[in-house]
């Protein structure tokens, strides 16, 4: 409806109590607006957003055959939805509406009534000029494939997979190892309640392996992902030892992806002066777990260690390596003190830490119990790491550790036969490949970025891709399981809806204008642009498009049109600002 003669615009000027009216002469504005071409009526009202205000719009649309509405009031953030719904209930397409913000951008920020009134006229005039070019837009919906791809067979991946499969959906679970369980399978007992990790896992692994709705791909990885939410095609390939090569590729159709690729432990050899790899009895926490699971805590020489020292924050909370806290090591260290003491009540344990982080449920009690078990706690200053020496033959221990003990302020030397390094968590080397494949972002440390750190902790900026567990950030088992179930719940909610609504405000390629220069192809932050090799033109997947307009601005041929933000609409609005 570009022809101005067909346009019948109703303009409503809100007083917002006195919020607007005390600074803007609304009657003068209404008088001005009445004289603008295409305006059929202009009204002022105390509260346009109130029910009577909205009813007035609905009635006017019906009685005066309005086909465009402008409301001059507060920010569209505040009430655009309100007025759009008023248009809908009057049977008018909700996009034939425009708001002029004469409160936040006018009455609230000005002190001169005359100037504020003039500015209000200009803002409303701009909105009127724009709304003339508005078009009826409809949102679309696309089908949601109920199958789900879960990447990673650790506790997070298995939990999510079972949740989804138990609800009746087909789950493809991809695991790069030849067994399930992930990092948790390397652990003996869990802190703080000392439940057996094996017990936690065995039940789940058995259920998954026997589940009709779960298909597990061992020694495999995701090698390709195309499509968009509800309609992805994933390629899964068998690993064959070569990093960039997979074989026996299988293509599966899925609607959503949950990434649960976990963490890898910090390489202790990077902190050279702890001598890991050189001193035989300096081991990592995971190596100790292995001994505990085998039931024998011994030194390389096969002796039961009398003195065991546990050093915290290896690779964590350091400017040099990772600045973040790995969250689970403090409690795990306490668990080791407990396990070593149970295995050999004669042993002496020193726990060398920076700060004792006991933030979780039951953790503080666990710390209290451990300190009563006669563990020697020594605090060291960040970046003033303990120094490990080889002991002399006259000492009754293998090594001596020098600690600048922070609380006493003294240099303390403690004996050790076995030193356990509490290695922190870090992002896996291949996390970048996964991020690229599923189009999600990573932070400076390589962890996957959530859509909102507080309100959207398992969603990502790519619709249909969720993240859970320690691939997002270091966390303990309860948090990991909670995230896995949260991600599964998000996916289930979408599956139960059966389809996804696509906002009407997306960008589209005008096919007979696109010449296939491909300048837009890599610009889309949502990967919504694909190149049609047959037609030799670019195409926007509307279900993926968020209407940000990057491609619209960048298209040198003006072949991409941003719905509701066309050049014509925006330029008319700009011109409208300068007419008054």
């Amino acid at each position, binding site marked *: 409806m570009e022809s101005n003669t067909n346009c019948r615009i109703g303009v409503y000027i809100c007083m917002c109590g006195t919020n607007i009216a005390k600074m803007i002469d609304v009657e003068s504005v209404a008088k001005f607006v009445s004289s603008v071409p295409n305006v059929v009526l202009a009204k002022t009202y105390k509260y346009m957003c109130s029910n009577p205000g909205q009813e007035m719009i609905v009635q006017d649309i019906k009685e005066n055959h309005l086909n465009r509405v402008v409301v001059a009031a507060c920010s569209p953030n505040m009430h655009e939805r309100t007025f759009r719904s008023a248009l809908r209930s009057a049977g008018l397409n909700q996009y034939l509406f425009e708001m002029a913000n004469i409160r936040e951008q006018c009455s609230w920020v000005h002190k001169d009534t005359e100037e504020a009134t003039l500015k209000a006229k200009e803002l409303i005039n701009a909105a009127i000029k724009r709304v003339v070019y508005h078009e009826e837009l409809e949102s679309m919906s696309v089908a949601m494939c109920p199958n789900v791809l879960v990447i990673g067979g650790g506790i997070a991946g298995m939990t999510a997979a079972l949740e989804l499969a138990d609800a009746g959906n087909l789950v493809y679970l991809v695991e790069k190892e030849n067994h399930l369980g992930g990092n948790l399978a390397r652990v003996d007992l869990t802190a703080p309640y000392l439940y057996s990790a094996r017990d936690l896992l065995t039940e789940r692994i058995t259920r998954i392996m026997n589940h009709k709705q779960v298909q597990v791909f061992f020694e495999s990885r995701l090698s390709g992902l195309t499509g968009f939410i509800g309609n992805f095609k994933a390629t899964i390939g068998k690993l064959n030892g070569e990093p960039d090569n997979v074989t026996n590729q299988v293509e599966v159709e899925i609607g959503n992806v949950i990434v649960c690729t976990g963490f890898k432990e910090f390489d202790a050899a990077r902190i050279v002066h702890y001598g890991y790899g050189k001193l035989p009895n300096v081991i990592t926490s995971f190596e100790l777990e292995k001994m505990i699971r085998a039931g024998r805590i011994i030194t390389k020489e096969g002796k039961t260690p009398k003195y065991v020292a546990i050093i915290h924050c290896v690779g964590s909370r350091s400017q040099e390596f990772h600045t973040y806290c790995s969250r689970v090591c403090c409690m795990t260290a306490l668990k080791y003190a407990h396990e070593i003491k149970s295995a050999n009540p004669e042993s002496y344990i020193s726990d060398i830490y920076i700060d004792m982080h006991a933030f979780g449920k039951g953790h503080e009690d666990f710390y209290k119990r451990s300190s009563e078990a006669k563990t020697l706690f020594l605090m060291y200053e960040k970046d003033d790491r303990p120094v490990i020496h080889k002991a002399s033959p006259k000492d009754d221990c293998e090594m001596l550790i020098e600690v600048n003990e922070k609380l006493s302020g003294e240099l303390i030397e403690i004996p050790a036969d076995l030193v356990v390094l509490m290695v922190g968590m870090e992002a896996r080397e291949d996390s970048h490949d996964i991020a690229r494949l599923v189009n999600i972002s990573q932070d400076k440390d390589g962890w996957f970025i959530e859509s909102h750190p507080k309100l959207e902790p398992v969603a990502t900026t790519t619709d249909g891709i969720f993240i859970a567990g320690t691939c997002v950030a270091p966390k303990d088992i309860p948090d990991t399981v909670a995230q896995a179930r949260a991600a599964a719940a998000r996916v289930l909610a979408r599956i139960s809806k059966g389809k996804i609504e696509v906002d009407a405000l997306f960008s589209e390629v*005008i096919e*007979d*204008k*696109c*010449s*296939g*220069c*491909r*300048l*837009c*192809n*890599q*610009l889309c932050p949502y990967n919504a642009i694909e*190149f049609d090799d047959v037609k030799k033109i670019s195409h926007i997947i509307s279900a993926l498009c968020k209407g940000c307009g*990057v491609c619209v*601005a*960048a*298209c*040198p*041929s*003006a*072949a991409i049109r941003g719905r509701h933000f066309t*050049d014509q609409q925006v*330029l008319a609005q700009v011109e409208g600002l300068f007419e008054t």
Partner: protein
Amino acid sequence: MAGDKPKLKLAVYWAAACGGCCVSVLDVHEKLFDVVSAADLVFWPIALDTKYEDVENMPDKYIDLTLFNGAVRNSENEHMARLLRKKSKTLVAYGSCAHMGGIPGLANFSTREEILRRVFEETESVVNTDKIRPVPEYTAKEGVLEIPEFYNDVRSLSLVVDVDYYIPGCPPQTERLLEVFTAIVTGAELPPKGSVVGADNKTQCEECTRKKSENKKIKKFYRPWEIKDDGETCFLEQGVICMGPATRAGCGHRCIKGNAPCRGCYGPPSGAIDPGAKMMSAIAGIIDEKEPEEISRVIEDIADPGGYFYRFSLPVSLIRRKVQ
């Protein structure tokens, strides 16, 4: 060709132009015989001894078709634009200057004062100690002498008078002119008024046979002489700015075929308001740097961006000219 029909009355005029457009009309070569058998050339300063007075004496709408080339830079150009509009049934803006302002339009990056000062006082070859400038009117012993007034703005034809059609190009391709001419002579259905004719709807990339991929990541822009063009990869992917994606096809992509990037003389495709701005935002999208300083460095490699992106279109662009 003409049959029994009365012959078409044809005029060709140059305003602020280099003469290339008139030569492109002459480039019909032997087809000129077809042209003159179908049309009488009633006014064409480059080829015929006709005077402005002759045009002034014509009845209104006497001329069937006028090909007006050149931009409107001075009062003489404007006078002739208005006169020919009045005397012509169909007025065609012929060539980039009439279409968009063209190369003369780049003068809008300077003011009249800057141009006159530079030309009459500062140019290295000029000695003008009295700082004498040309004036539109001068009274001499012999009487009053007049020269056209030099305007501050260069305008395209449509910024001065109502234009029926546009034939783009610097200069337009002669074959495309013949197509349009034939269509008019044979009475074929003409496109709506205001259309660009003698050109295509898509951009240069549609015809360009160079290999194009999505891999357009640029860390440095080069001028064509700074790199060895491989002859087959999209210029942009090699870091050479090519106006092709923002430029209407129809010239036979001759520059690109000659291994030179497109300069943009055919103007934007329909719907693109400002090809210079369009191309700049497209270029911004392919700069492969994250840090602001690095991005600035890449942009600084682009020599004379105003002249590059607005080479033919400054007077009709959104910015139109340098603010005084």
